[in-house]
């Protein structure tokens, strides 16, 4: 281990702001990217399911009206 | 082959002559952009001399951008492009002809205007000559590389802005060597190295760029 204390580690020999600024932004963006992707994926799946359900019920409705007409 | 290219050039020039206002507008855009810089940075001759090559070259890039969207748009709209794509002659040669015509209409006027505008920036005689020469060699590359962007954004919404986003980064080497030639003359290094590299870029731009352009046009026509 290179460091003597946590304070030393955080100070980074007076370059703490720059080092931790880099780490923070990189970590933030590399966590944000998969999070946003997962969210987008969930939204897409929900949208597609809604769309399919709408199509199915529409088709069912059509077939019902068709059979109704044939019974007439 | 040459006949085909000449026919395309002749046709495009005739079409351009019918829309002279566009050419004149692009030229005035060039003049106005260049003239704005002294107003923005102050009239000190020393500073202006230093800025001149960069300013003139950047203005030339922007003025070229202005005329690029029209390179294929007309032919696309009236269906000529589709016929050209179906013709047995390679589409790349047609593009080459159109690139040359575009340079004659949009590039050459900039070259002719450059010495006059250079005087505004207090450039000396040899620097003025090299500036004009660098534009003469470099502007064909702008037309060639720009054609790729024009073909890729053909019929795409927001085409004009998108075109500059695609093409301007690719123009950077031309800008560096073009403006660098003038800088090198002013600082006494001699412009030969810059000008020959610029010439290589121009040859590459004019003779290689038509093929990806033709591919992009086929994609746009699908």
């Amino acid at each position, binding site marked *: 281990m290179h460091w003597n204390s946590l304070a030393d580690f955080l100070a*980074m020999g*007076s*370059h703490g702001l720059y080092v931790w600024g*880099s780490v923070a932004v990189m970590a933030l963006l590399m966590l944000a*990217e998969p999070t946003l992707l997962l969210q987008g994926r969930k939204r897409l799946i929900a949208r597609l399911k809604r769309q399919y359900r709408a199509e199915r019920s529409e088709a069912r409705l059509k077939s019902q009206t068709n059979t109704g007409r044939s019974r007439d | 082959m040459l006949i085909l290219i000449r026919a395309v050039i002749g046709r495009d020039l005739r079409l351009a002559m019918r829309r002279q206002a566009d050419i004149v507008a692009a030229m005035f855009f060039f003049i106005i952009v260049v003239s704005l810089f002294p107003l923005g940075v102050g009239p000190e001759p020393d500073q202006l001399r230093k800025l001149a090559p960069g300013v003139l070259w950047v203005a030339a890039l922007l003025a070229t951008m202005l005329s690029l969207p029209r390179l294929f748009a007309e032919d696309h709209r009236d269906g000529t492009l589709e016929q050209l794509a179906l013709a047995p002659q390679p589409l790349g040669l047609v593009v080459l002809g159109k690139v040359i015509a575009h340079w004659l209409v949009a590039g050459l006027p900039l070259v002719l205007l450059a010495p006059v505008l250079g005087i505004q920036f207090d450039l000396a005689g040899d620097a003025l000559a090299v500036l004009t020469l660098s534009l003469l060699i470099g502007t064909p590359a702008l037309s060639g590389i720009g054609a790729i962007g024009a073909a890729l954004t053909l019929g795409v919404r927001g085409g004009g802005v998108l075109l500059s986003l695609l093409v301007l980064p*690719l123009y950077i080497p031309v800008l560096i060597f073009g403006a660098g030639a003038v*800088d090198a003359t002013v600082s006494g290094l001699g412009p030969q190295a810059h000008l020959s590299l610029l010439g290589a870029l121009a040859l590459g731009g004019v003779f290689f760029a038509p093929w*990806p352009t033709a591919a992009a046009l086929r994609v746009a026509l699908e």
Partner: protein
Amino acid sequence: MSNRVINWFRYASPQTFYPLAGRLIPWFWALAAIFGVAGLTIGFLVAPTDAQQGEGYRIIFLHVPASWMSMFIYLVMAFWAAMGLAFNTRLSGMMASALAPTGALFAFLSLWTGALWGKPMWGTWWVWDARLTSELILLFLYIGFIALQAAIDDPRRADKAGAILALVGVVNIPIIYFSVKWWNTLHQGASVSLTKAPSMAALMLWGMLLCALACWMYSIAIALMRVRTIMLERERHTDWVRALLAEKE
């Protein structure tokens, strides 16, 4: 031989690639985490202080992997673009568009960490150093690619147009790099150049390589995740997507 070729093209169809990618993603995440923890441990806890740059040099463990990945991803993107144009497979275009945002992210991170490195080392956030300038232009190229694909509604056309742009870009990158480098040597007087890297201890090199591997695995995992979403979106009218989503209910 012919058997293997057929196998490859079998995986090139979205329907078979989708579940395969789904199985692979956790493994790449695990590898990214392992390499990342190992690399950062070496880089931030074990590696000694640099003689010239003090502790500030530790940004290298983030900056160099980000720069490498931003360049490497563009090459991979161009490779998929070429495959797409040559074999006309649907997967290639999807892979290229799945990679672009991650490449742009790494180009941005490379610039950001480069600026934060430059401030303590050279006393300025930004120098027109050949590498930083080229990285900036690379970011522009990524943004152009993403903007072009976003502007075209028909995905097949977007793929092909993007592929042509990526290939033109990849031909241009060396030209841009050398012109910028040349411009830089002519114009630069006093400022320090990035090429004078600190003489690297073996331990530092290991830390950097492990971090680069972590970024690599991360990029693969992210690209696979994104390509799966793109597949669902584009193939939403096909039976396999319908069956897949029906299963999930």
